[in-house]
């Protein structure tokens, strides 16, 4: 009797369409499983369909989230405005010597080009970039990512470096027709080869979910890395250009980590690098 009850219950739950329901649960579960299994097929038409679907959802999400993102921007705008006076005071006290630094930088750049030519090193990396707008930023345990409004139609490829201003913030991990997903450097799955200057020590920066600090892995045991040393991309992966600043070394409880230069909360536009 009890078993009959269960069967009747199961049948009524899965097969009967309830009041005001257009589909039965069973049909939709089967459809979900089919859609999920299609994720395995990375062939042309399915990929294109997936890419178009993602573009539509991203663009729709962007327009729906506009009022919320404007509120967030307004909040940061007011905060910035309140800090202007204080920052102005600080800047007045700092002797920037920008002109001098400019010439020094120009000299080093030219010297670098000459030396590279001397050892016949080819520049594999591109200086072309798209300035892109962030459509959505996602924070979940699975992903710290942003969505930008340029896709493979604009020449963006998987692995492309992404900067916010002069700082490295992540790389492209998904490309659709009109949009791309950028995995931020603070994501748990992010591993970026780095070089720590001035000693030129190579290591890997991995994200831990924090928007301020990243972990350093594969650091040699006997190293002379000190607080304040600057971390750059090393470019050993052959995809991300070397020398993009990431952050500086900070030591908390004798554990060395990278304090990111970029403020992940306030990124609105990013540069996505691509090859012509």
């Amino acid at each position: 009797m009890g078993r009959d009850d269960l069967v009747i219950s199961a049948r009524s739950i899965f097969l009967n369409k309830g009041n005001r329901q257009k589909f039965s649960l069973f049909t939709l579960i089967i459809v979900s499983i089919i859609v999920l299994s299609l994720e395995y097929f990375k062939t042309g038409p399915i990929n294109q369909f997936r890419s178009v679907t993602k573009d539509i959802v991203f663009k729709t999400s962007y327009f729906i989230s506009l009022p919320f993102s404007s509120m967030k921007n307004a909040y940061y705008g007011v905060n910035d405005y309140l800090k202007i006076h204080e920052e102005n005071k600080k800047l007045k006290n700092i002797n920037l010597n920008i002109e001098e630094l400019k010439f020094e930088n120009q000299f080093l750049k030219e010297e670098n080009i000459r030396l590279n030519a001397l050892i016949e090193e080819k520049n594999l990396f591109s200086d072309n970039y798209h300035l892109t707008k962030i459509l959505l930023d996602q924070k979940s345990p699975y992903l710290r990512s942003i969505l930008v409004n340029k896709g493979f139609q604009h020449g963006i490829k998987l692995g492309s470096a992404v900067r916010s201003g002069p700082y490295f913030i992540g790389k492209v991990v998904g490309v659709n027709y009109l949009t791309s997903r950028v995995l931020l450097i603070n994501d748990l799955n992010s591993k970026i080869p780095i070089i720590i200057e001035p000693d030129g020590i190579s290591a890997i920066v991995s994200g831990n979910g924090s928007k301020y600090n990243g972990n350093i892995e594969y650091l040699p045991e006997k190293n002379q890395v000190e607080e304040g040393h600057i971390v750059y991309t090393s470019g050993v992966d052959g995809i991300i250009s070397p020398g993009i600043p990431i952050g500086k070394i900070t030591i908390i409880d004798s554990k060395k980590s990278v304090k990111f230069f970029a403020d992940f909360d306030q990124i609105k536009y990013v540069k996505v690098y691509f090859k012509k």
Partner: protein
Amino acid sequence: MSLFANRIYSKTITSLPTLILFLVVILGLNINIIYKNYDFIVNFSYIIVFFWSLKKPEHLGYGLIFFAGVINDVVQSLPIGISSLDYLLLSAIGAFIRNRSIIYNFIYDWISFLIAILIVGSVNYIILITIFKIPIVYESLILGLFVTFLIYPIFFKIFVWIDNMVLVRENDQKNR
């Protein structure tokens, strides 16, 4: 209130569960918390789907739940279909409890919710880890589910209040 404004208001009130679910998935409003190196998510969408499937399934269609899941997958960059499957399983468990229970009891609902999210979490974990090889920290998943379970009563109160508003609106329409 004019007739048109009244109709819009009624429509909005009766569609509130759907609107809330879609806002949560589109805007990614599931709160992400980092505590002692554990990064976990409080899954509001689980609460919404379970509550309305259990109490008033007519206010949250299965088709819409499926569609919300697809949007969630696209926004969160998960394999498309996984969230739909999660939400539909939650709906199925909610519907099963509704079918089997005679007397309303909040504690019974709450415990059922825990069992439901544990089942759905397990399915989710098994599929993502074994089939799609997506690295998920098991402790984070469990912590997220546990916090979601703890905050269920707060949302339960809010949703009961929304449900009463919907009921008042529907009665108004019937009496007109």
